[in-house]
């Protein structure tokens, strides 16, 4: 009952408001084109008819919510998932490179963090480069990566995954540096009184203490991985994937397709972030976390 009052009502209200706003803007933005089309056809529709037509264009400037919903539903549930028109198929293509890139990125981020925490030289030298790496627009890097790899005969999943890696290692590295350094002096003193070795302190203290930080940064990293995978599909002339679907939609002004591909992308993002969150809660529970 509390959940209903505290969560469902506010979320639904906000959502309904957004949908109404979306319809209003759809009418406003599609009206000029519709007026133009009507004039050329010599028609003079009544106001309510005119509104209906602005929300039913084949290539609207801003598709109405129900158009996107219908398109999304058809392309998700009524197509065979092997079909080139199935959003499930495209989402899977993007998802597979997202997951591979995310796995690489997480491992790389953890390794960098361990290096930074344990070697003063790395601490001083690596961080500026890592931060600089994130200031380069991914759209500038992606085509180069793809071209370079294609030149040495590597195409397909790997170049795309590497672009996801490029985006996702950063939050993990930053979060894990903070996590591995999170134990207070008191705990380090305690380990010192036991004459614990550096590796014992690492495995028994720093690693467990960093787990909450790991999952928090993995949530950011998995979303970044998805963005990386989609962006990687844009310049590569990929034939499949959510990015390819966006690009094809843009070529042929299939605005409804673009929007439903965007919806598919956000559904995947929500699923991924939720999955990481659930995994984090399970691990925290098994580590004796206080139930919230």
């Amino acid at each position, binding site marked *: 009952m509390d959940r209903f009052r505290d969560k469902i009502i506010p979320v639904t209200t906000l959502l309904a408001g957004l949908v109404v706003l979306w319809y209003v803007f759809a009418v406003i933005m599609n009206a000029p084109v519709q007026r133009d089309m009507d004039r050329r056809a010599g028609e003079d529709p009544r106001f309510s008819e005119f509104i209906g037509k602005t929300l039913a264009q084949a290539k609207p400037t801003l598709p109405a919510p129900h158009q996107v919903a219908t398109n999304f539903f058809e392309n998700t549930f009524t197509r065979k998932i092997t079909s080139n028109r199935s959003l499930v198929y495209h989402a899977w293509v993007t998802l597979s490179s997202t997951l591979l890139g995310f796995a690489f990125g997480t491992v790389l981020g953890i390794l960098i963090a361990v290096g930074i925490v344990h070697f003063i030289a790395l601490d001083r030298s690596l961080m500026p480069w890592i931060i600089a790496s994130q200031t380069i627009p991914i759209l500038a890097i992606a085509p180069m990566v793809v071209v370079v790899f294609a030149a040495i005969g590597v195409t397909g999943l790997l170049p795309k995954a590497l672009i996801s890696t490029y985006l996702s290692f950063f939050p993990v590295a930053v979060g894990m540096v903070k996590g591995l350094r999170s134990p207070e002096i*008191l705990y380090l*003193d*305690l380990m010192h*009184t*036991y*004459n614990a070795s550096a590796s014992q302190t690492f495995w*028994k203290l720093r690693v*467990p203490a960093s787990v909450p930080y790991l999952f928090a940064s993995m949530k950011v990293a998995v979303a970044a991985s998805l963005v990386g995978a989609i962006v990687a599909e844009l310049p590569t002339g990929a034939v499949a994937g959510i990015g390819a679907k966006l690009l094809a939609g843009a070529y042929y002004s299939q605005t409804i397709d673009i929007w439903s591909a965007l919806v598919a992308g956000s559904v995947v993002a929500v699923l991924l972030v939720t999955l990481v969150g659930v995994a984090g809660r399970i691990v925290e529970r098994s580590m*004796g976390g*206080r139930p919230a």
Partner: protein
Amino acid sequence: MQPAHSNTVIEASKLGLTFQTSDGPVRALSDVDLSIGKGEFVSFIGPSGCGKTTFLRVIADLERPTSGSISINGMSPQQAREARAYGYVFQAAALFPWRTIENNVALPLEIMGISRDERKARIKRTLDLVNLSGFEKKYPWQLSGGMQQRASIARALAFDADLLLMDEPFGALDEIVRDHLNEQLLKLWGQTNKTICFVTHSIPEAVYLSTRIVVMSPRPGRVTDVIESTLPRERPLDIRESPEFLAIAARVRDGLRAGHSYDD
């Protein structure tokens, strides 16, 4: 340094420690001469900044002295630490929140490479000793503050060091819990015959627990008085109303007053 007496556990002579801070040097310890024998219960009492905690940390090799000498069982603090000669109890329980109580007690044993079976036996024995049997599988947050501190004492006892260093272990607890734990600590000391160094800023606590009370004062941190307790080893809680107890407490209070400058 004169040869350590066979019964001497800690021998400090002319011990000094000066911290270099941005406001200039701070003399945390100055000319501390002290010898602590086996099986003694020695309390260190004094206002904050008197160096009582610093002295304990020097024994534990958590701070390095800048002058004088100190030996623990005839070894340097570093050697003593490497030989795991002492257990240290901090003011905060410092239990690892992701470990159950039994696994917290197991932590030093794991680090010292003690076998699984032996660990099990020792966990049972030490948790019995601090009256925490039945709480093995609980996580720290499921225990009260007093129970957490008892678990941390169990952890310090688990590897059977003969020396126990306790830095205001009951300072953060309320008086009722503190009385109870003081009683238990005395019992535990009686059962194990360990040497205990105990830092506190409570006069009744110091007098009730100790065989010897070291009164310290700040700026520079130094020992101003060492009081031998005349109380018997067996001490019920109501001994604290006896004239003998009150006399010792009065002497400690005088010592604190004499060493403390009230002009600031």
